């Protein structure tokens, strides 16, 4: 019976994988002068700080989740 796992075949698969993975290495992060799009307000996780603060406040008071979203407190509702 012919063994499927022949050494040369394994070597070829490994080589193919190496070529494929090497493609990932060519990714260049944006240069300092190319970060204009990343600096846009819409790229922030928190696009509108005031709105998210309001949401957080409502969440805390309605869900009894005080302390979960920011510093201090452990959810006991006593602060």
């Amino acid at each position, binding site marked *: 019976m012919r063994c499927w796992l022949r*050494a*040369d075949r394994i*070597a*070829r698969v*490994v*080589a193919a994988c*190496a*070529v494929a993975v*090497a*493609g990932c*290495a*060519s990714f*260049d992060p944006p*240069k*300092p*002068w*190319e*970060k*204009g*799009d990343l*600096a*846009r307000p819409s790229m922030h996780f928190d696009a509108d700080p005031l709105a998210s603060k309001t949401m957080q406040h409502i969440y805390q008071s309605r869900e009894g989740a005080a302390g979960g979203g920011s510093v201090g407190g452990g959810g006991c509702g006593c602060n």
Partner: protein
Amino acid sequence: MTRTRLQALAVALLACGLTVAAPAHAVRIGEDAPAFELVQADGKPVALAKLRGSVVYVDFWASWCAPCKRSFPWMNALYDRHRGEGLIIVGVNVDKRRPDADRFLRDVPATFPIVFDAAGATPAAFDVKGMPSSYLVDRRGVVVAVEEGFHDERTATLEAQIRALLVAR
């Protein structure tokens, strides 16, 4: 068998080697400033080679860069104080979209020449490490100082250095 394996290894190594880009060369103190020729808003060109004989302060800026905004009033004042003695400030804008730069300049107008490089060839040639970045070039075209970022506490030192360059003809 061994030969096949060696061949495969060679191919894999080659693939890895090809993808490693040649490291860009950052402009260092004592080296000639990379030449550039860029155009101002009114169409007038600014070529670094033509500014030989003047002390040139090349500043890379963008509309989205907050410290750049803080640096402009200082650069305006610096330019107004020393332009008569042979100082030229060249503000190289690296915005991809020109209206962004125009809006910035309406907010903080510049008294010194501003050129535009949306393609980013000039910051690439200098291998700018951060925004803003400034390069002080002496009368012979040699980089004598590299300034990364804008720090209020550095301005006095920098201006003293510029003044020394202006005096040393």
